[in-house]
């Protein structure tokens, strides 16, 4: 605590006492003053735990071990003893008996280190879910301003356990996210693979629990037709077919889902749902036209480039939409013989710039952030008036350049 703060608190305390004495006011519930400043500075035992966390992903019946090393950075020997603490944030908790630490305790000499083997063994009847635990190696805790339900131990190893099971039905994909053109038809397939030993009934229906119901959809549910078998036999893969006939007048987006109604209690409700998100894309039908004139005959070079896009492919499967251009050049003698002389696929890799704070640990690792298609055309230009016509496909913007001469 600095001198200024000490003086200030003393003056305030004196003023308070003086005021109380003078006015004779009875304070029934005095408020503690300056609690944080009065806490002693922490003086924890210098122990280094490596690693500080472990993430175990196990199926029921599986087990896994890992080694944690504690290094004593004190000038004297330190005794440590493992203490299991379940973290309260998750609804699902692991049983402390699944976890063992060997040795349970140790005397670590000054400057020395001790390895502990942490073993997690999940029983075969454990249910899926995520849970966490802390293994505290000393009883030293962080000082808290207010009482806390769970003490914050200083020398801890964080353990995250994710128990997962393979569902009997595998659904691919679990979402359909696409851009559609008004007036066109689209087909999608949802594959259901039964890896269980018994046949499983299904009854896919459009789900009307659309959370965006208040926003008018681009088209009504009757534009979507679902056809599917009644069951998926053991070991077989069946296909749920989704056909969309996008009305010519539609615009905006459609958000909903298909509830597959899989008759298998091990499938949680949300696991049996395929989400649908469609944006109705209006493909221009008329080409963009740029007029220009040439004062003398010269070679003409046209470059057309798409906007930068996400590196991951647009659309899905057969509906995969890569940018493309229909480019024409009309001159004094009619349509010019325009040849693509170069096709460029350009990428962008960002090593800095804004990114989600939880992705900052990937900063400095190469990651493609955008891709662009560039097409270059050449022809012999004659003196006179010219028109460049570009009809873009699957790109929200494009750029062009007209180079006259070499």
């Amino acid at each position, binding site marked *: 605590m600095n001198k200024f703060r000490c003086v200030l608190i003393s003056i305030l305390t004196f003023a308070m006492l003086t005021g109380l004495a003078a006015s004779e006011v009875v304070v029934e519930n005095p408020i503690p003053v300056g609690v944080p400043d009065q806490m002693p500075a922490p003086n924890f035992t210098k122990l280094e735990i*490596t*690693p*500080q*966390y472990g*993430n*175990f*992903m196990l199926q029921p019946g599986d087990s*896994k071990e*890992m*080694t944690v090393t504690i290094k004593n950075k004190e000038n004297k020997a330190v005794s440590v003893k493992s203490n299991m603490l379940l*973290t309260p*944030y*998750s609804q699902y908790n692991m049983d402390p008996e699944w976890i063992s630490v060997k040795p349970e305790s140790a005397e670590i000499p000054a400057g020395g280190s001790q390895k502990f083997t942490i073993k997690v063994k999940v029983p075969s009847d454990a249910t899926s*879910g*995520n849970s*966490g635990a802390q293994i505290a190696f000393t009883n030293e805790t962080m000082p808290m301003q207010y009482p806390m339900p769970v003490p914050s131990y200083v020398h801890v190893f*964080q353990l*995250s356990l*994710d128990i*997962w099971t393979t569902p009997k039905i*595998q*659904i*691919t*994909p*679990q*979402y359909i*996210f696409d*851009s559609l053109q008004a007036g066109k038809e689209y087909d999608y397939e949802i594959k259901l693979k039964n890896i269980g030993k018994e046949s499983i009934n299904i009854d896919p229906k459009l789900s009307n629990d659309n*959370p*965006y119901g208040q926003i008018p959809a681009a088209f009504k549910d009757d534009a979507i037709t679902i056809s599917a078998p009644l069951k998926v036999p053991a070991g077989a893969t069946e296909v749920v077919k989704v056909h969309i006939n996008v009305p010519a007048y539609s615009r905006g*987006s459609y*958000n909903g889902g298909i509830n597959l109604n899989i008759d298998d209690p091990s499938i949680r409700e*949300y696991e049996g*749902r*395929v*989400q649908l*998100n469609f*944006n109705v*894309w209006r493909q221009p039908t008329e080409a963009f036209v740029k007029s220009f004139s040439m004062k003398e005959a010269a070679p003409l070079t046209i470059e057309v480039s798409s906007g930068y*896009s*996400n590196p*991951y*492919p*647009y659309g899905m499967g057969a509906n995969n939409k890569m940018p493309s251009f229909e480019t024409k050049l009309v001159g004094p003698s009619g349509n010019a013989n325009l040849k693509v002389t170069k096709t460029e696929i350009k990428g962008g890799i960002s090593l800095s710039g*804004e*990114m*989600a*704070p*939880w*992705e*900052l*640990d*990937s*900063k*400095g*690792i190469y*990651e493609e*952030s*955008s891709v662009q298609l560039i097409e270059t055309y050449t022809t012999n230009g004659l003196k006179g008036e010219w028109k460049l016509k570009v009809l873009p496909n699957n790109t*929200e913007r494009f750029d062009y350049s007209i180079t006259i001469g070499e």
Partner: protein
Amino acid sequence: MKLGTIITIILLIFGLGVGLALDPEKSNTRPEWVHNLQWPGEQPDNAPKIEELLLMEIVPYKTEYEMVNITSNGDAKEMHVSVIATTLDSDNPDIYNFVYENNELLLTGYLLEAVPGRYRNEAIAIALNDRDVETSVRNSGDPSVKRVLPGTSQKFYVPKTLLSVTWKGISALIDPDERKVVQVWKESGTVN
């Protein structure tokens, strides 16, 4: 069989057992979720120690590593170790960067995109259930899906494995177990 021969055989078996137990290569047990491991470049002298330490740090997400490639540069005092781990069920690898110093391995960065298709699809579906995200990413193509390790996620939620679903300029942090979006980041600086 003569007694001397039996004793000799027993001593040989005992000697072989002791020899194998002391073999440093054998003590470096590879976890079952790493099928192949190699150093494509020059292997440092302390490669077994580095392998031992990093195999405690790298874990695939609901799959197994088919190949783990380790490269290193720097000197014995401070060595940069890069790990690229690939799986059979994802086109994208897991990339880890470490610094090896004073016989300790420190994770300095990671880009973990080896998320099997099923879990990738699930994460995207969860992100799209968020109205703000859904309206912001229309016509944006498919997002990237990256694993966020507990050491990072504890700053934003709780110390557990999360998934980050990111389109250009917007990212949703997903808790795959609770099937919910725990935070949304936008390039404009908004974090919800």
